[in-house]
C-alpha cells in the first residue's frame, strides 16, 4: 500500500533521515519505534507531506507522492494525526469532527461515520457541544484520532497517540487502534512506548539515527534481546 524508499530529510544542516526503507501492506498495523531523535515523526511528516524530503521516493497505492501537497494527500486517503493532539481549541468537539470530514461531500456517509466515531469514543458524544480546548488530555487525543478518521482514511498515520496519557487510557486507546484495523483502516503508528507498540502491531520498523536498523514481527521483536538492550535497558 505504502512504500518508502531511500527517504532522506533534513532540517537545515541537520540530516534527520538518512535513507529509510520500509513498506506498509493493506490491513496492517505497522509501528515505527525508536528513541528520541530517531526520525519517527519526521518520517510521518514526509509521508503526509508536511515536510518535503530531500531525497527518496514515496509511493502510496501505486502513486508517486512527490509534488502532491499535504492537503491533497488527505483526498488520496492518507490522514495524519499529528503529535501533540492539536485539536481546534476554540471549536466545539462536534465542529472539530466535522472539519475532519471537510474534504468529503457525501453527507449521509459523514453522518454515519460520525455516529461510528462517537460509538468508538463515547466521551466525544457526551462532550459534543463543549469547546475542544476544555477537554482533558486523553479526551483531546481521542478527539484528534476521531477527527483524523473523519476523512475516512485508507492509511492512518498516528503520531505518539499515547503521549502524556495515563496507562489505563493508553490501554483503551490501543484497543481502539486494534479495532480500527478490523474496520479496514491500515495504521502506521509512531510510538515511544515501544513495549506497548510492539505488542499491538503486526510489524515494527525500528529506527535509529535516521535509518532502519531492524524490521520484523512485533511479537518477535518484543523478545529480541538486542532490542531489549537498546531500548528497555538491562537484559
Amino acid at each position, binding site marked *: 500500500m505504502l512504500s518508502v524508499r531511500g527517504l532522506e530529510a533534513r532540517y537545515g544542516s541537520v540530516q534527520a533521515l538518512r535513507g529509510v526503507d520500509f513498506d506498509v501492506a493493506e490491513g496492517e498495523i505497522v509501528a515505527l519505534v525508536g528513541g528520541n531523535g530517531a526520525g519517527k515523526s519526521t518520517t510521518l511528516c514526509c509521508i503526509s507531506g508536511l515536510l518535503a524530503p530531500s531525497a527518496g521516493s514515496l509511493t502510496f497505492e501505486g502513486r508517486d507522492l512527490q509534488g502532491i*501537497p499535504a492537503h491533497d494527500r488527505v483526498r488520496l486517503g492518507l490522514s495524519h494525526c499529528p503529535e501533540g493532539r*492539536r485539536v481546534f*481549541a476554540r471549536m*466545539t468537539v462536534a465542529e472539530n469532527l466535522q472539519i*475532519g470530514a471537510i474534504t468529503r461531500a457525501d453527507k449521509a456517509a459523514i*453522518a454515519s461515520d460520525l455516529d461510528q466515531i462517537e460509538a468508538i469514543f463515547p466521551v466525544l458524544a457526551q462532550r459534543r457541544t463543549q*469547546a475542544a480546548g*476544555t477537554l482533558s488530555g486523553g479526551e483531546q487525543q481521542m478527539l484528534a484520532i476521531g477527527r483524523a478518521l473523519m476523512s475516512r482514511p485508507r492509511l492512518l498515520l498516528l503520531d505518539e497517540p499515547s503521549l502524556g496519557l495515563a496507562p489505563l487510557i493508553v490501554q483503551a486507546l490501543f484497543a481502539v487502534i486494534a479495532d480500527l484495523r478490523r474496520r479496514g483502516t491500515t495504521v502506521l503508528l509512531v510510538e515511544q512506548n515501544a513495549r506497548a507498540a510492539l505488542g499491538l502491531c503486526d510489524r515494527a520498523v525500528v529506527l535509529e539515527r535516521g535509518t532502519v536498523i531492524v524490521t520484523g514481527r512485533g511479537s518477535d521483536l518484543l523478545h529480541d534481546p538486542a532490542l531489549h538492550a537498546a531500548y528497555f535497558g538491562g537484559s
Partner: protein
Amino acid sequence: MAPPPPATGAATAMRRPSLELGLLVLLLAYPWLPIFDLAADAAGVPLRLEPRLVTVFIYALLVLALNLQVGQAGLLQLGIAAFFGIGAMTTGVLTVTKFPFQLGFWGALLGAPAAALLAGLLLGAPTLRLRGDYLAIVTLGFGEVVRTVLLNLEHITDGPRGLNPVAEIWAPAGLRTWLAGDDGSRASLLLTYHVALGVLVAAFVVLRVLERSRVGRALSALRDDELAAACMGLDPARLKLQAFAGGAALAGIAGCLYATNLTTTADPNNYDFNNAIMVLCCLILGGLGTLRGALLGAALVIGFDNVLSPLLDRALQQLPGVGGHPLANFSAWRWMLFGLLLVVMMRVRPAGLFAPATARAAAGEAAR
C-alpha cells in the same frame, strides 16, 4: 446527526436575528423620526446625527473587513487603512472630471473593491506565508508606503488636496424627490445614508452566511492551528489569500463610500496607521472573530468619536465659566479615555464584549 447549535445555546441563536432586525428598522426609519436631533436641539447643543451615522456605517464596514482577515483567518495585519485609501482613491479616479472615466458612484462601487482586491492579492501572495508578528510588520509598512505614494503621485491623486469633487450617488429624480422633496442636499445625504446602511447590511449578511459555511469553518480551523488544518486536507495558503483579498475588497468598498460621503478623496494622511489601529481597536473591543462584536465595536468607538465627543464638546463650551477654556475640550482628551478603556478591557474581558464562550475559554487559557 444534525449540526449542533453553537456553544451559546439554541435560544440565543434564535433571538439574534430579531435584535439585529430591530436595529435595522430603527436605523432605516431614523431620518424620518430624528428623535436624537430634536433632543439635542432642545438641550441647546444642536447636532445632526445622520451624517455622523454614515461615518459609523463606513467604519463598521471597515471593521467587518478587518474581522475577516484578523478575526476569522487569524492574519494579524495593520495595513487595513491602505485598502481603505485605495478604495477611496479608485473612486476618485473613476468619477472625477479630471479623468476620462467618470463612471459615477455605481461604477466606482464595483471598481473600488476590484482595485483593493487586486492590491490584496499582490500583497498577500508573497507575504501570507509570514507568521504573526512578521505579517503585522509587512502590512504596517505597506500601509505607510501606500499613504506616501498617494501623497506624492500628485499628478494622479492631487496629493494632500485629494481628488474632488467625487460623484454623488446617482439615483432617479423620482426617488430623490420621494426622499426629500425639493431639498437637493438633503436628498443626497439620505441617499448616502441608506446606501451605506444597505451595503453594511449586505456585507453583514454575506459574512454571516460565509461564517456558517464550509469556508467559515475552514477559516476558524486555520486560525486555531494551521498545521492541523493542513492535516485535515485544507490548503492554508489558498484560504489565507482568499480571506485576505476578501477583506481588502470589503475595505475598498468602505473607501468608496467614504470618498463619496466626503465628495473628495481627502488628504491621504486620513488613511494612515492611526486609522488602521483605530479599526483594530473597534474589533478588539467588540470581540475578535465575531460579526456582532465587530459592529458593536464600530458603533461604540466611532460613535463615541463622532457623536458623543462633539456633543460633550458643545455642552462644555456652553457651561458658564468653563466655555472657552483651552482644557474644556473633550475631543482633546478622548484618546486618553479611549486608551484607558482598552487597558481595562484587556484586563477584564480580553476576548471582547461579544466573544463566544469558546473564545473566552481560549483567552482565559492564554492569560493563565
